[in-house]
């Protein structure tokens, strides 16, 4: 169980008044939530995530983890940086995944087992012996995600973790996030620039100039047309289509389907994946 509380935090990068990023911001994330943190560039998404990890300290207010004030680094949370290059430490893929476990003093067998499992989960096991810097951007993002998964942290702080991951791998990883939340009770806080990544989260928190301007389930957020527009975001077309189909009584509720689910609902089954 991990509960993160931000209590009236104030934060700025510089020293001037105009540099204030957050003023008395409060946010409570309870155990097992999957929070999608959205907002325009520069709204403070990454900063908020770093405050939750203890990488940055607020100048006022308190960060509490499970009720206890955060003094140093949040021991329950694994952080995944937006730029994987900043986080890769070992020249070989499998070693990079094992690095954190080695630091934690685990035995070699456990490290091997966990590294393999984590690499399989992100679809990178065939690349285990390859050089990390030979991986593409999307693969490097999957690599540092594997490193975080291998730690079996109870909380994952993910800064735009899928920005370079494309196509089907992205769908697979979003499904994986849902899985580790359900099966392992992991708490996830994920920033993103694309709303199709928050369709399945349990809660959307929208930031604008350092203030929380929306906090609620994704379906409710998708109805906030003017806010979404103001934040420079876009409702995913499939969500729009789902709403229209529900309105036309062609589908029950506004349940979002994947394109393939929708096709099989119509009676078309697409064989797509060959891998």
């Amino acid at each position, binding site marked *: 169980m991990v509960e993160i509380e931000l209590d009236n935090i104030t934060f700025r990068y510089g020293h001037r008044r105009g540099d204030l990023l957050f003023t008395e911001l409060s946010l409570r994330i309870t155990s097992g939530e999957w929070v999608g943190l959205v907002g325009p*560039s520069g709204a403070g998404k990454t900063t908020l995530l770093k405050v939750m990890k203890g990488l940055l300290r607020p100048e006022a207010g308190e960060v509490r983890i499970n009720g206890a004030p955060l003094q140093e680094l949040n021991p329950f949370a694994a952080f995944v940086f937006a730029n994987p290059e900043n986080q890769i430490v070992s020249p070989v893929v499998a070693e990079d995944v094992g690095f954190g476990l080695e630091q934690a003093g685990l035995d070699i067998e456990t490290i091997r087992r966990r590294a393999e499992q984590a690499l399989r989960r992100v679809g990178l096991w065939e690349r285990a012996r390859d050089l990390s810097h030979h991986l593409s951007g999307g693969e490097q993002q999957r690599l540092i995600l594997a490193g975080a998964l291998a730690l079996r942290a109870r909380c994952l702080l993910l800064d735009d973790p899928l920005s*370079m991951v*494309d196509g089907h791998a992205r769908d697979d990883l979003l499904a994986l996030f849902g899985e580790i939340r359900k099966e392992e009770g992991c708490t996830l806080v994920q920033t993103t620039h694309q709303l199709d990544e928050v369709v399945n989260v349990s809660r959307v928190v929208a930031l604008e100039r350092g203030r929380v301007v929306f906090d609620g389930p994704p379906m409710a957020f998708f109805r906030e047309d003017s806010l979404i527009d103001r934040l420079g975001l876009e409702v995913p*077309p499939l969500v729009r289509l789902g709403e229209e189909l529900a309105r036309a009584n062609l589908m029950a509720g506004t349940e979002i389907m994947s394109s393939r689910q929708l*096709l099989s609902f119509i009676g078309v089954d697409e064989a797509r994946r060959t891998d």
Partner: protein
Amino acid sequence: MLKAIDISHTFEAGSAPSRWALRSVTVGVEAGETVLITGPSGSGKTTLARIVAGLERPSQGTVRLKGEDLYGTEQRSTSASGQVAMAFQYPERQFFADSVWEELRWGLHLGLGLDEEAIRTRLAKVAHELDLPLEAVARRSPRQLSSGQQRKVALVSVLALEPQVLVLDEPLTGLNGRERRRLAELLRQRLRQDRAMVVIAHELELFLPWATTVAVLAAGRLVFHGSPQELAATGDPAVLSAVSLPPLIEISSSLKRHALSEGPVSNEVSIVLDQVRRAVEKRDLR
């Protein structure tokens, strides 16, 4: 204008050809055209981009720019002469200066030899188009900016060079929904008759509507090369496992292939809604 012919590449000399990053890939782009290169992570997109940008000599094959071999002579700097410019996937990799202004000024000053006045005018214009608050960030270190602003600085620096061939590696990463749409639209508008663009991207919905050709890579091989319309209509499992078509296009295309819709393959909610509605009616009639 630019043609990469039969390109094969490996980073490990002597490795088995099946492990090469690129295998016998041929792609080209003419003036006034955009080629979209897409495919799964690790399929060789960035490597191909670096090769066509003149940054990585391919193990095999040739790259011709206006008929001239790009790697023909040893000491050749294509970017400095303003012919090819590339924006990298990681903006940080591109940054070298301590301030945004120096970062942006460098190529225009040293590469193109513009005077301060011309540099100022050109940068102000491009920064405005990309919605980068140049005044506010000019003296800051590019590394201190948010990821979205770093992306914009990197893009302004190459767009301002107005190269004949612009190579963009995942130019939309780190940007928001509307910024993405806006940037894609801006790129489309900036594409002039005498220029060409090579775009690596996985946001197909933003580039398919206007790209001239699409090249799909999978494990270093070219598995598709054709028009966006041909890609949208394809039923080839090898291609469909390598790219994830925008969901509405996938639905629209699938209905058409299964003879449940006669209309064009579309990415518009209203059109696809209508196609789904008709498809359901047809299904109920069967």
